[in-house]
């Protein structure tokens, strides 16, 4: 899973030759074997490394504040979203929905690495949502749809159909 995400990111970044990866431990943490220097371990760490390699620093945020926000959501992805239990799913979606209420992307108006990896991570949850729930978490759905259509991002994941008109106007589910 993690390796497919990294390979999708490489394609998005337009890196010419694909990197070599291995995994370590029970949790299959990805490790990037690089020719020059020590190996880099961890999904987020490798992703940031690739972004720097591709000289696209704006994907990590263009100020100290937005860099912090990007790092926060990347951490959220691997430390919270990936281990969120069935019971937590609703709270996770509710919180994210509220957060995205006044934002286009996770770090505000700018598309960043945080959007890409939160999108990869939340995809399985969105696939399972019923139509009513997609409407309930309308900001998440809007953001999700936006990111999955962002050129070059989706790659390994199936498109999730999002309706643009509201089916349930009453708000009663």
């Amino acid at each position, binding site marked *: 899973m993690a390796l497919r995400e990294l390979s999708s990111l490489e394609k998005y970044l337009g890196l010419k030759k694909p990197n070599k990866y291995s995994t370590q431990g029970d949790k299959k943490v990805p490790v990037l074997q690089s020719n020059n220097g020590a190996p880099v371990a961890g999904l987020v760490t490798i992703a940031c490394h690739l972004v720097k390699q591709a000289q696209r620093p704006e994907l990590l945020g263009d100020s100290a504040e937005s860099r912090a926000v990007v790092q926060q959501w990347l951490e959220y992805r*691997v430390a919270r979203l990936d281990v969120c239990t069935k019971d937590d799913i609703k709270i996770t979606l509710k919180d994210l929905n509220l957060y995205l209420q006044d934002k286009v992307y996770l770090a505000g108006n700018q598309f960043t690495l945080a959007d890409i990896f939160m999108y990869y991570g939340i995809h399985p949850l969105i696939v399972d949502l019923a139509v009513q729930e997609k409407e309930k978490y309308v900001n998440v759905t809007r953001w999700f749809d936006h990111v999955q259509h962002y050129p070059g991002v989706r790659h390994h994941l199936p498109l999730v159909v999002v309706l643009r008109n509201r089916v349930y106007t009453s708000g009663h589910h």
Partner: protein
Amino acid sequence: RFRDIAAILATHTAQMKLFASEGNPHCLKALAALEVTGVQCDVQYVNHEERVVPFLSRPALPALLLPNGLYLFSSNAICRYLFEVSGQESSDLCSQWLEWEATDLQPAVLRALHVAVLQGKGAEVSKALQGPLNYLDQSLSKRTTPYLTAESVSVADVVLWSALYPALSASSLASVQAWFDRVAAIQGCQAAAQKVLQGKGLQGMKNYMQRQPAPQSSQCRDTLSHNSSPTECDEGERVVSEEEMEAAALTWSKGLDSCPVATERQHPILPQEGKRNILLTSALPYVNNVPHLGNIIGCVLSADVFSRYGRLRGWNLLFICGTDEYGTATENKAREEGLTPQQICDKYHAVHASIYKWFQIDFDFFGRTTTKKQTEIAQDIFWRLHKRDFLVEDTVEQLRCESCQRFLADRFVEGICPFCNYPEARGDQCDKCGRLINAVELREPQCKVCRQTPVIRSSKHLFLDLPKLEGQLDEWLDKSTGSGDWTANAKQITRSWLRDGLKPRCITRDLKWGTPVPHPDFAEKVFYVWFDAPIGYLSITANYTDQWEKWWKNPQQVELYNFMAKDNVPFHSVVFPCSLLGAQDNYTLVNHLVATEYLNYEDTKFSKSRGVGVFGDMAQDTGIPSDVWRFYLLYLRPEGQDSAFSWADMALKNNSELLNNLGNFINRAGMFVSKFFDGCVPVMELQQEDKRLLAQVGWELRQYIQLMDKVKIRDALKHILNISRHGNQYIQVNEPWKNIKGGDSERQRASTVTGLSVNIACLLSVMLQPYMPAVSQTIRKQLNAPESCINTMLQGTGTFVCALTAGHRIGTVSPLFQKLEADQIEALKKRFGGQQVFDVHEATSQNTASAKPAAAPAPVAVAETAAVNGADPERARQLTQAVAEQGDKVRTLKAQKAEKAVITAEVAMLLDLKKQLALAEGKSPEPTPQKGKKK
């Protein structure tokens, strides 16, 4: 060096603010980073529960408010930011350590703190941290620099040190210890630790840890989602080892000989030396209501299953329950029906008793609270509390209706809401604005009975001084929740009560129908029901046996289980224990508190007034047997989360699980013996495949026992159904009906398969006994099984022995279950309310169906026509059948070990059918678990 840069940045960071709470280990990171970098930032200490970050539902501290108004809620991102603004950007290596800290170290630290702080097992910290510490030690020992990433301290050092500091006093790993000491020596680190933990060590974090959900054992969503219902579990891809197979075969060969025969219950049951003595109570149902299915599964049925199981396990067990009869509601009901309260109680006590009898609830004694013993014991506890100064006096203002000559309970007053002017607000709460109201604050109050205006009277009352008992309670709770099986909701509700702080609680009321307060200053008053009712457990036992104190004043020998729904938890975990602790008479206090969540009815609440739902007395009129009711309610048991009763689902589960899976297997096994072997169990010669099955069944049996021992009643049921699934598959693959017509070796194969299957049926009858006692008895009768098999199989961790040996003659075999037809279910659904609710669903599902992208083609013609329809009973019936057929097809393919791609395609079709069925039944489709997703 950081301090100079920080001074320059002071203006930049002026508006920054860090929110932290004392005793919260996560805050140490942020405070340490602040100290080490010297960044200027206001720090505000708040309560653990304070919701600082506006978009998060759960409190998240520390939180950093950035100059641009955004919040950071992850401690690592905060530290990284503080280092960046002080001129130190994180290297790849730093990032790598931070990511490892968040994903690997942090969960381990939380587990370690949980056991150390809340369970007092400080010694287990090193075990919990072992994995991550070894990794850290290896990495450190390979490095040549003094710190994790460089010659000087970095954000990685501060974060990891701060994460470890609260849990780790010393490490036996040399490299870790040296590094840990080096970071500790940095001045800012110690100062931050002092601020967060206040020098109190682990105890300093107790308050914080109590508010946290218990850490999960490294399970993640993918494994959990398969557990959502007992049937949709992983299809037993468990690998069985050779050793397991041999061990299972050895156990099997032991037979029944050596085991004790079940002893008849002899009343009165009393604790016995050297036995596990269990006193088991189910919450006392309030007498003037007919219990609904939710009440039944919440207490009496759950308690019944566990007590039946306990008796099978050979525990010395007493199961007590009864009706709770005192209180205003009874007085009122009596007035309504023109009877005396005593007559009302007599009438409804009989109603309860007959409902529970029909549900086969096997109480050792079902009593009531309106007895002489109740008065004696309640008054004794009262005087003991009084003598020990645990009761305080205070004046209470209450409404009194002069024309009815009585004080009005909250629900007998109506008036204008002081907040929103709603004219029909009740004395305790306004239905319009939902605010809680004190009855005396109502404007223009009216007595609901006579419509006169009541007057405010003050009257003297006695209060149980809970704050004075809090220390003792705390100490006892730590012990009881640490060693007993308390459900998660019970622990959590109790914690939240303690967190809010205990207040004195009034124990007296101005009523007539109750246990009289014996104190002369409070004549004419009775005990408040919450004080009185739990004492009912004691008095009911006293009515059962004069030697009741051997159960209730004997915590050394007796283990007490309380079963209830979650709304009853505080009275059993806080208030009643306080009464007993204060009375100081060596009372037996609860060891295991088992609370269920709520059961809803077709996604709404049971409501007597709206006529929604099935109530205990109606269940018997449905024509559906008591055992099937029990099965479905237990299958749905709201264990860990709310669940919902649904007629369509009940029919589906009856037809698929009981009829097609369990009943089918047991019936086939018995029929083969009758038809092919003249009713005598044939000779069995075990081959590898048979031993594998023995091992599989043995494993399921062990799981069942482990879960039942922990009162996971619903989860344990899954393993019973798994066994018959294994059995069906085994018969399907081995085809005894063909082999019986073959040569000698084929005939021997048919013998073995039949013999083994009929023995599994015998085991199933034992495992089913707690759930479906009548069916269990019927199976044993049909198999003519020796009674001793009941006790043998559930010994120790579970022993599946050959109970029906070669030559054993079985009885007459007949089908165990009947199909529930769609029209029958539809009629029941209409009859029991749901109508209004049903309409909502119809609308919903219609939309769901039409909004979906084109459905995959289904193998039955009917499927295509109705993709646009909403709830449609006829279609549901067809689909139920289609699902069953498709299910069989998949099972057969799997049994034949067909190609994976073929199976996958058929499974996809099955899931699609199920989804359509859900729609046709007017439910929104269950999200399908993401199978095959690898982590």
